[in-house]
């Protein structure tokens, strides 16, 4: 494929020049011209008011595969640590169930190095079937045996979609599986849909540090693979009466050239709390200094919640990185999120916008945080928050 400018239509308005992230469009004799720096990102196509920029397919282009229709079913890789299934696996089952129902296919989970009891747990959360491999080599995470075995299972059973958590484990070994299978893999998806007609998985994810969203498809290869960050998808309510099959997988010839010598826990209480918290009170640049967080702590404590922060507040040194919420921090999804003095840079929004109820308090009525808020208060944090604390205390009879 090439991107070309139809110079007879180009009006020379230069709109496309600044749309190119690779500086690949220059003006030549009053017309736009695409240089060899073009990376085929297509960012310019939609911006041309004249429709003068087009993509030209060359002969024999496009990745093809024999019969994508031979692939059927949705799979979720259920990661475990110390035998215990990670919470992201249940969230993936929630997302996977919805996709499987839309497609009218079954939902399966793949579980390595864990117990039958854990497999039953996965069925309660939506799986129709669990492939369980109980090999000792799989109890601790090593990339090669995980990748080889999952690729083998996929080749044997041919699911059309395979999801994993965008955790240190999923992000490390899933790419190896994609490499083996010549499969498309999309990282850190925040939304999935099925494209009507084609049945392709529409995979939406943030790029450029979360300033831009992109929808990715894998039109001609199967399976379609994707990872999802923890706390982005919603788990289903467990249903103890759900029925499903457990299929025992007995792998042979598994080997690993890496070896886990030791596993050291180093978990900060806080980072766990942020992701589990039902209420988060978050502060940003608008607080002005570190003292503002004392006020937020008081409000959070009253609501049984914890304190979060935007990158601006962390970069300013007012609070530690472990509180940071956003693309480069934690993704959270509490029942109530109160943003205080946070303008709402996209990189922050992607980390909190799936919260159930969002309250925004900001001096600037134009702040983008109000666009994701259910309730907006234009005002000074130092005036509003103390009043809020007072009212809640009254309400609780404190």
């Amino acid at each position, binding site marked *: 494929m090439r991107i070309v400018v139809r110079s007879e239509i180009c009006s020379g308005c230069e*709109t496309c020049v*600044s749309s190119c*992230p690779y500086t690949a469009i220059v003006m030549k004799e009053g017309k736009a011209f695409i240089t*060899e720096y073009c*990376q*085929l*990102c297509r960012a310019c196509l*939609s*911006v041309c008011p004249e429709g003068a920029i087009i993509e030209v397919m060359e002969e024999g282009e496009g*990745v093809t595969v024999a019969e994508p229709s031979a692939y059927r079913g949705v799979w979720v890789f259920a990661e475990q*640590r110390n035998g215990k299934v990670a919470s992201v696996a249940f969230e993936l089952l929630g997302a996977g169930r919805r996709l499987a129902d839309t497609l009218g296919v079954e939902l399966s989970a793949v579980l390595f190095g864990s117990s039958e009891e854990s497999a039953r747990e996965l069925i309660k959360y939506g799986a129709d079937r669990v492939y369980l491999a109980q090999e000792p080599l799989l109890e601790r995470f090593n990339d090669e045996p995980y*990748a080889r075995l999952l690729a083998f299972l996929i080749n044997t059973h041919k699911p059309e979609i395979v999801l994993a958590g965008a955790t*240190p*484990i999923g992000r*490390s070994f*899933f*790419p*190896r599986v*994609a*490499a083996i299978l*010549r499969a498309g*893999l*999309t*990282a*850190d998806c925040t939304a999935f849909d099925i494209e009507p007609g084609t049945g392709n998985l529409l995979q939406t994810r*943030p*790029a*450029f540090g*979360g300033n*831009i*969203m*992109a*929808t*990715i*498809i894998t*039109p001609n*290869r199967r399976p379609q693979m994707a990872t999802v960050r923890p706390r982005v998808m919603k788990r289903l309510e467990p249903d103890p009466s759900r029925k499903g099959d457990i299929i025992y997988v007995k792998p042979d010839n598994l080997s690993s*050239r890496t*070896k886990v*010598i*030791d*596993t*050291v826990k180093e978990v900060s209480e806080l980072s766990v709390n942020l992701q589990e918290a039902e209420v988060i009170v978050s502060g940003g640049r608008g607080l002005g200094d570190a003292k503002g967080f004392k006020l937020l702590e008081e409000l959070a404590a009253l609501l049984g919640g914890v304190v979060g922060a935007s990158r601006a507040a962390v970069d300013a040194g007012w609070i530690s990185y472990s509180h940071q919420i956003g693309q480069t921090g934690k993704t959270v999804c509490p029942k*109530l999120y109160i943003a205080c003095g946070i303008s709402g840079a996209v990189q922050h929004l992607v980390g909190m916008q799936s919260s159930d*109820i969002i*309250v925004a308090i900001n001096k600037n009525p134009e702040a983008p945080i*109000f*666009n*994701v808020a*259910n*309730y*907006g208060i234009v*005002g*000074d944090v130092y*005036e*509003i928050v103390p*009043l809020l604390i007072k*009212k*809640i205390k009254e*309400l609780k009879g404190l």
Partner: protein
Amino acid sequence: MNIVVCIKQVPDSAEVRINPETGTLIRDGVPSIINPYDLHAIEAGLQIKEKLGGKVTVITMGPPQAEQALRDALSMGADEAVLLTDRAFAGADTWATAYTLSRAINKIGADIIICGKQAIDGDTAQVGPELAEFLDIPHVAYVRKIDSITEDSIIVERLMEEGYDIVEASLPVLITVVKELNEPRLPSLRGKMAAKKAEIKRLTAKDIEAEESLIGLKGSPTQVKRIFAPELKKEKKMLEGSPEEQVQKLIEELKGLKCQFL
């Protein structure tokens, strides 16, 4: 010891925005930089060389202007630089990128390959592990500390969600590194002078004998369907009035939702 460091030239992503009205990328004045994580990969490569001897080769795939990133790496102290550049590479996703890099690294030869944990423009963290698979070598991702390295094996700390693992791997091996690993050195004046004059080796698809159907857009299983400014959700309610009234309204709204926190 043949040490290969894979780097990427990226736009400084903190500066890239979409104009919500026109849907265009705003990149006016956005500078190109070496992906920040890759600076730590270069530093790790230089430290291994200082300990065990050998040479550090930096490699990148990209348009001709990516040469600048390689020169910056040379000025930090890398010995050689390879630029994979060819129009046929354009439009590559992580699969096709990793395949292309693997073809080149097979030619160069490597005992250890070091990558940054991810690039800040795509944030996928996929090319490193995919590259290891194509080269049929083990990898360890998210390395925050190198405990020991010899000609045959390496022991590292791998960052995990709830702490870290101590992992041993045989060489040749690929590691992807996080910022905690080290503090990248600044280029010396002499390094800068040498880098200016250094020869950058250019390789095309033909040079690395890459299969045409596996590179660039043609070789990429994934396609970008569209890019857009993040969607902002739902009906918002601005609470009007004096501060007291606003707070009172908020409390009532939350109570109306049977908010159990009140």
